């Protein structure tokens, strides 16, 4: 066991001695997490900006704007004069003059939502829904305050009698608006139709997976190729260790490389970039450990079958990038067609990403990562068996 550990720690030491390691294992992957996390919407629950141009300036138009604010919008109020001289915002809601009078008289009155063509489409769609909700809530509050004041109900196809918007009415309306909602809707995602992982929630696990594939693959593969070339591996085989023990040492070394890479990114992601890591530390550790085993075994496979350092570097890099791409490290598999999603699961990266997303984006517990972990270990055993079979300690 001590010799296995000696071999494993030796590989870590060789990795640390490589000068570009700081760039490949720290600077570049942390940069990736930040860059892709920011590009994909780094905030978990972004607030949507909405500019309200109140041309009416009445109690009811103000109450409507407040209802919009309660919908989670970041409201910017503007007078028509200021709005005319300002640059057009992404989303602008115009409440026309005569809004309150029309409502009092029971006449239909439109409000206008202007959306810039380059505004975030998803945010604008959400804004539309929330504007609708604010309208409904305002109507509900009108009905409730009318009922409170004993106003005669409006019958269908009959003109409504205008009501006075005085202090009594305002007080009744404000009280109605402050009441807790009697019926609420609890929304829970399940099965298909779940939200697409984005921002740091995607970029952190994607970068962990991708750089474990790349760095463990390249360093782990190149070290073994170099040892074969320099006949160091043959020399190791003359020491009091079985070939299986030598393989175990090399596998452990590469597992430690993978864990180191993951640890660097998790610490940087959590404490430097404020990324969310889910609620199950055990589940997260299980996924990372299984993925480390898989990439370690894959690195041994590369080292066993490839003959030169140059060949190993080039092939490992290209294949790692490919496995990462089809496995959902560059973009979430949720955005690709179903056949591509299914084909992508040929890559171990896809199973790792499934597990990470379950924990981080969908709040699942450790039970959700069991299947991906079993499959990752299966891949690892396959790579290990083929690599061990093909590895030659001497010519």
């Amino acid at each position, binding site marked *: 066991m001590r*010799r296995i550990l000696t071999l494993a720690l030796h590989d870590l030491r*060789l990795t640390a001695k490589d000068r570009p390691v700081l760039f490949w294992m720290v600077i570049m992957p942390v940069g990736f997490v930040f860059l892709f996390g920011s590009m994909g919407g780094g905030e978990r629950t972004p607030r949507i900006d909405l500019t309200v141009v109140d041309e009416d300036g009445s109690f009811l138009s103000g109450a409507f704007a407040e209802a919009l604010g309660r919908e989670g919008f970041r409201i910017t109020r503007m007078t028509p004069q200021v709005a005319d001289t300002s640059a057009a915002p992404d989303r602008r809601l115009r409440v026309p003059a005569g809004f309150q009078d029309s409502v009092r008289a029971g006449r239909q009155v439109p409000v206008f939502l202007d959306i810039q063509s380059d505004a975030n489409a998803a945010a604008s769609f959400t804004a539309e829904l929330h504007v609708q909700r604010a309208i409904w809530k305002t109507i509900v509050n009108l009905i409730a305050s009318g009922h409170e004041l004993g106003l005669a109900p409006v019958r269908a196809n009959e003109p409504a009698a205008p009501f006075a918007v005085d202090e009594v009415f305002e007080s009744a309306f404000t009280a109605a608006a402050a009441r807790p909602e009697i019926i609420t809707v609890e929304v829970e995602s399940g099965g298909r139709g779940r939200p697409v992982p984005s921002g740091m929630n995607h970029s952190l696990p994607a970068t962990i997976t991708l750089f474990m594939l790349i760095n463990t693959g390249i360093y782990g593969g190149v070290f073994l190729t170099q040892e074969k070339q*320099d006949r*160091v591996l*043959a020399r*190791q085989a003359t*020491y*009091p260790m079985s070939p299986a023990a030598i393989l175990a040492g090399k596998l452990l070394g590469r597992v430690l490389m993978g864990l180191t890479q993951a640890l660097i990114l998790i610490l940087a992601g959590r404490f430097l970039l404020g990324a969310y890591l889910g609620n199950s530390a055990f589940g997260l550790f299980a996924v990372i450990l299984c993925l480390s085993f898989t990439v370690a075994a894959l690195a041994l496979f590369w080292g066993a079958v490839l003959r030169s350092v140059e060949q190993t570097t080039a092939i490992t890099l290209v294949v790692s990038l490919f496995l990462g791409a089809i496995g959902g490290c560059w973009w979430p598999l949720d955005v690709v067609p179903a056949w591509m999603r299914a084909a992508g699961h040929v890559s171990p990266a896809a199973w790792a990403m499934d597990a990470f997303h379950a924990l981080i984006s969908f709040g699942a517990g450790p039970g959700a990562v069991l299947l991906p972990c079993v499959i990752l270990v299966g891949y690892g055993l396959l790579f290990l068996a083929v690599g061990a079979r093909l590895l030659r300690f001497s010519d």
Partner: protein
Amino acid sequence: MLSVEGLSRSFGSLQAVRDISFRVHPGEIYGLLGPNGAGKTTTISCICGLLRPSSGRIELHGTDLGSQPIAFKRRIGVVPQEIALYGDLSARENLSFWGRLAGLRGSALQRRVTAVLETVGLAERSREPCRKFSGGMKRRLNLAVGMVHEPQLLLLDEPTVGIDVQARINILDVVRDIARRGTAVLYTTHYLEEAQELCDRIGIMDKGKIFAEGDLEHLKGLVGEGQILTLRGGFAADALRPVVAADDTVRIVSLEDGAAMLDIPPHRGEVSSVLSRILGHGLSIDDISIQEPNLQSVFLKLTGRELRD
């Protein structure tokens, strides 16, 4: 004591080692001498457990390699023909790693690393990455790695290939010193002078077989008391052959156009008689040398072939 009995190793249809047997005693330097492709490295590879013998038995102090490989390997040190080191690590780091792999730990490891660095003359540059070393320094470090854990048997496979005279002298001195302390040494080389100078006993190997073994005097005795007459000149091999063959006591060791080696009996006047006969047939000779029997003549007599580098 290393005991090799009936060792054979084949690669497909090629028999690299054919039923060889020899022993190496503690404190003895046993040389395996032979040309490239003779089977020396295959023999060493079998003894260090790198290759599985096709047949035969290898034991060290009663520990059988086949049934107790780990225990066997614990007692041996190997210096391969190639410089098998980590170029990015310093001499000290290399020795520490290999020493740890051999089972040394803590202060014992540090003590041994320091000692072997002194022995091979690398103490002052022990902290430099060894990729910066000269070929001779790397060879010395290669040797140091094999002996850092004080093995009972040291296997050296052509450890002086491609180095300068000073480095070679240092390595040979170190090997002698190791043997003096009781380590059995198995040393393969194709340098005749090296084997002659260093080894207590020599096995002459070619085509996978050991043709003869013993100390130098014993091997010289195999050639007889004769002298080796080497001739160079403008003669044709076909013209010289019948002239020499007329004398039953003279044996042709090697013959080609312009060069011949003849085994001459030690009778008084025999050399001048042979030369007179050749010159009498009108064959021209430009250069003559007469040698006492040596390892080369033993090798030529046993294998009928020139040593090849």
